[in-house]
């Protein structure tokens, strides 16, 4: 691990081969794995546009922000690309309580040679900055905007980072990369879905070179993901069931967009539902337990209508069943 700082990408890999995307692009990659490289999930499906945006981040050193609704697999998307490139990766979950000290580093008391000494310990930002690491700020819009100014300088491509506590200037490693994921585009919680999302400073949003939008996948792709996660459904009957499940999910998304319901099914919910089907052996019961009970009581009838359209069966919540 000592030589992490001296590592650099040493091979070129074909995008077509790695991600199954129709492109002649070659991307730099590490030939050797290390502890910081995430594990490869063979079932993962790459969205072509977002993959190319993230790859631009890796190859051309661009700052990429991935924005999308919850459960679309934003962070996983970056991680899986890093995994296939063998690129070391650090994921930091931001929340309203992360402070400047957590990110930059702080003085801590350590025992050295039996004596207590105060020593500066680097935070995650200076540590990553000096290594060929892809740093992912997860839930970027949950961080307090005033604290996030810490990273203002390093959002520039060759931005140096001054450690005020030590009068030291850190030059970023040429293979340091920075990514972020967010539910909103920094305008705050407009839809009512993301309590706690902050209104971000647009001087900072402006510094992200690429903003990729990861929306929900097409019905076929989503069904394929569900099937790869729940392999036991990979039968003719299972395919039909999963297709119906995905179309319920799509109706809830459209219903949400129209303002009829205030919850929607993410791909993650569909996977959970499929898994719960395995446990309860009854799609309707599994649906109730995985999603319906999360809905407001008044909205369940509407969701029951969606369910009827896709399954041709009534839920107990349905109204007017004479």
């Amino acid at each position, binding site marked *: 691990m000592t030589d992490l700082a001296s590592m650099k990408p040493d091979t070129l890999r074909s995008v077509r081969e790695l991600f199954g995307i129709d492109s002649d692009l070659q991307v730099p990659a590490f030939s050797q794995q290390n502890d910081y490289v995430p594990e490869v999930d063979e079932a993962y499906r790459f969205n072509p546009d977002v993959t190319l945006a993230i790859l631009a981040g890796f190859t051309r050193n661009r700052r990429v922000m991935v924005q999308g609704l919850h459960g679309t697999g934003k962070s996983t998307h970056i991680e899986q690309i890093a995994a296939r490139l063998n690129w070391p990766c650090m994921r930091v979950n931001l929340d309203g309580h992360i402070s400047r000290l957590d990110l930059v580093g702080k003085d801590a008391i350590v025992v050295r040679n039996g004596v207590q000494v105060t020593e500066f310990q680097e935070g995650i930002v200076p540590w990553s900055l000096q290594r060929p690491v892809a740093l992912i700020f997860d839930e970027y819009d949950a961080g307090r905007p005033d604290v996030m100014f810490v990273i203002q300088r390093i959002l520039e491509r060759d931005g140096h980072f001054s450690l005020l506590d030590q009068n030291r200037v850190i030059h970023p490693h040429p293979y340091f990369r920075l990514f972020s994921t967010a539910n909103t585009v920094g305008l705050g919680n407009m839809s009512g879905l993301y309590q706690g999302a902050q209104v971000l400073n647009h001087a900072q949003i402006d510094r992200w070179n690429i903003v990729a939008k990861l929306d929900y996948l097409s019905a076929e792709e989503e069904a394929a993901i569900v099937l790869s996660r729940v392999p036991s459904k990979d039968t003719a009957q299972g395919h039909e069931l999963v297709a119906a499940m995905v179309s319920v999910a799509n109706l809830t998304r459209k219903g949400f*967009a129209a303002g009829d319901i205030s919850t929607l099914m993410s791909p993650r919910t569909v996977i959970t539902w499929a898994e719960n089907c395995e446990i309860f052996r009854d799609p309707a019961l599994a649906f109730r337990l995985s999603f319906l009970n999360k809905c407001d009581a008044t909205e369940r009838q509407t969701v029951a209508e969606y369910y009827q359209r*896709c399954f041709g069966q009534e839920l107990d919540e349905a109204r007017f069943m004479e």
Partner: protein
Amino acid sequence: MSSNVQQQARRQQQVEALCAAAIRALSGRSDLHFRGKQLYQGEHRLPMYAPHHRIDTAVAPFADCRAAADGMALRLLYSDAELHRKSCPEKPVARLVFELLEQLRVETQVPAHLPGMTANLEQRFSRWSLEFHRSGQTESSSGLLIYTIAQMSWSRLNARQVLEETEDLIESTRFSLASSMGLALAGLRHHRHDQVAFIPHAQAVAKLVDETLESWQEGEDGSNHERQDDDDDAQQNFALLLDFDQEGDDERFASARSGTSKALGESRQGYTVYTTAYDREVVASDLVRKAQLEEFRQRLDTGIAEQGINVPRLARQLAAILATPQYDGWQYGEEEGRIDGRRLAQLVSSPTERRLFYQDRQRPVADCMVTLLVDCSGSMRHQSESVAMLADCLIRALDIAGGRSELLGFTTNAWNGGKPYQEWMRQGRPPAPGRLNEVCHLVFKEADRGWRRSRRDIAAMLKGNLFREGVDGEAVDWACSRLLAREEQRKILIVISDGSPSDTATNLTNDAYYLDNHLKTVLARQERQGEIDILGLGVGLDLSPFYRHSLATDMSQALDNHLFDEIVQLIAQRIHRS
């Protein structure tokens, strides 16, 4: 108004809400809603002319409403309305057939992943067929012809067998049509995925039906008149099918009646008022003796106590939808946060004390104003006690939740036109005089007086002789202008009414829908401006022909928490969607 009718109105509203939600989700268009049993996109009516989906949402079984909703969604998704309109034949019969065929075409386009929708549509078609057949409409030759065409096209388009029960019945007609329609039918099936290529074939079928019927008619006119008398009923039903631009104003059901006003449409100045000299705006409690007001208040209090309404709960619900958290000062004595310098001395004296910090404080602030505008027309007199109780509870809850509220009413000073009418008579009855009565706008409770201070004033609503006639449009305008003058950010107007605007003198001297259309204009204008959320609360009546967001309530029975839940939901929906 019997409670049965009211329940029907309530059911209709729920059915429409569910159907509209389904259509919105299926078609992905968010501006669809029902108004007076008709689907609207924004301000435009989306008619459903295909005979098997012409249902009445108030009485039809829910499964049929569902199928109609599905049919509508498919129509929106897979049919180009403009193209359809352009290629539509003009003659009524041909048009009916053309509409039917286009609807049957889109119904073959159900996406594979929506099997429930396929089932809904299929069941509806066979149910409609049976109803049509059993109501005796197939006994007339024209009815049978349309029926056969519908069955043949449906069976061909879906590659399914025709309905078994009527297979023998249509056999001969089917056989006679087979040669002339064969080509067109094959075309229908072949081009069902392509509207442009489908149209000529549909037009051909429509033309064929039209010509056949015409030739029969000519033959009939010459010979047997008795036969025509026989199927008079069937003829009438058939005429109903052809009636395309019917407005949903069927009197049997509790829907507000509406139509088009000629006087208003033709008038160059739009809505006019004959004279405003006698109009007034009064504080309602000034019209009632003090002692009587006290008595009314007592009656109201007893009434409310009997209803068992949970006002604190209502207040919490209202606060949840109306209030938004805002940073408001600091909260001291916390166990974490920023260090409060003033407490450091305390730390020195008692080191175990941990509450040394302070934090941002968030408080829910309901920056909103709700105006209740009550229709004080004669018919509302019987409901006045319920309405007063409802208003009182809402106002009290809003007070607790931190919102502002205003209680207004509208009526007239006199019956049958009063002084303006006499003046108009003296002037020699000039035509189209406009609104012809003295309106009276009542202020029961002002926004800046709390519930506690205006308790007695609210009770003035129980005074029966305030209730006369109603000019809704002007009253809504008046309430809106009062709301707009307020600085609260969110403005909500709830109109409580039991009917369309009514003023005998105005209706007689202009026409029946003069005030009615003015109300619509006012509401459409306010909706466009979008500063105020207007909600209609129908007392035993569906107000959806007027109000885009409305609720039919049943006030003949005791008020209950359920009713308030629904009102809260109505407000919440409006906010959610805006």
